[in-house]
């Protein structure tokens, strides 16, 4: 997967009480969204295209960020940023035509000390989220096969 400087996804909202004697002068550069129409024949289209992929990615992240076994890695993390980057990565890996602009899996997970249990927990959450959105079995399995080799760059770093 190609490696680029991470593009800024979404505006930061300063929620500290009484904060912000200043406001940002301009919005961040707009992230390129995934395509409205998935390329024909791609795994991305068989997964259901942008609306379905965006949906099951959001469901997966929400689930793991709330799960007692896995939520520690998401403490204080901007979940929308994670969802945007994961959607972009899946779109890029499954022929959706996106360019992945996030960090490598190694850089993302370095220092987190992700355990095997946490990794498999996320895989399970992803599988369940895809099932709930009626992604066909073959497409679900193909995506998981693509993501499985990432384990060595995610776990125990």
């Amino acid at each position, binding site marked *: 997967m190609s490696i680029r*400087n991470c593009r800024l*996804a979404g505006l930061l909202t300063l929620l500290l009480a009484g*904060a*912000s*004697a200043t406001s*940002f002068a301009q919005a961040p550069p707009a992230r390129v969204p995934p395509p409205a129409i998935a390329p024909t024949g791609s795994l991305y289209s068989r997964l259901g295209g942008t609306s379905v992929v965006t949906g099951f990615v959001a469901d997966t992240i929400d689930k793991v960020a709330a799960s007692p076994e896995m939520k520690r890695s998401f403490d*204080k993390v901007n979940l929308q*940023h994670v969802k945007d980057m994961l959607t972009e990565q899946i779109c890029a890996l499954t022929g959706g035509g996106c360019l992945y602009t996030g*960090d490598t899996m190694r850089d993302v997970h*370095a220092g987190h000390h992700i355990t095997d249990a946490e990794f498999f927990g996320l895989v399970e959450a992803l599988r369940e989220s895809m099932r709930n959105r009626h992604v066909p079995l073959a497409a679900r399995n193909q995506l998981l096969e693509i993501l499985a080799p990432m384990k060595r760059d995610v776990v125990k770093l």
Partner: protein
Amino acid sequence: MVASLALLASAATTAADLALDIRDASGNPIADAVVYALPAGEAPPARAGTRTVIDQVDKTFVPRVSIVQAGTQVFFPNSDNIRHSIYSFSPAKIFTTKLYSGREAAPVLFDKTGLVVLGCNIHDTMVAWLFIVDTPWFARSGTNGLVTLKSIPNGEYTITTAAPAGGFRAREMHVLVDGSDASPVRIPVVLEAGS
């Protein structure tokens, strides 16, 4: 609001220390307030290689409020074991810098005056304020709200006090520094809430 203040003292007669006592309208001391003195004329520029550190600890910036002279390099050492992605959209410095676990990032040069608000793309509760000013005479208040600008050369100055972390409005005063005056003074400064 402008107030002309009395002359201030120090052991030398060509310079003086300026001590301030910064409080809110209820009399509570304000920590992390920055104070800087802009002379009527030109201030000496920052020495080459001037640097400061803003660390990342437990997903917060430390210190939360900083002040540097224009031309200062800021290092972001990232003491956390996880990565951060620091950025600012403030006009004085628009930038992003990635701070990867186990790798030292290059420092960032701040050479334009203004207030820079820092955030992290990954941890959206992280925020810090960095003032870049055209003077070497600046300081930050401690938890007791007290701060001293040391050895300010005699002359006229505009003293600005700002405390953005608490949501206070900045305040300016005009001061004439004259080291030959014998009586030391601690200047009370009251900051009002609001932007």
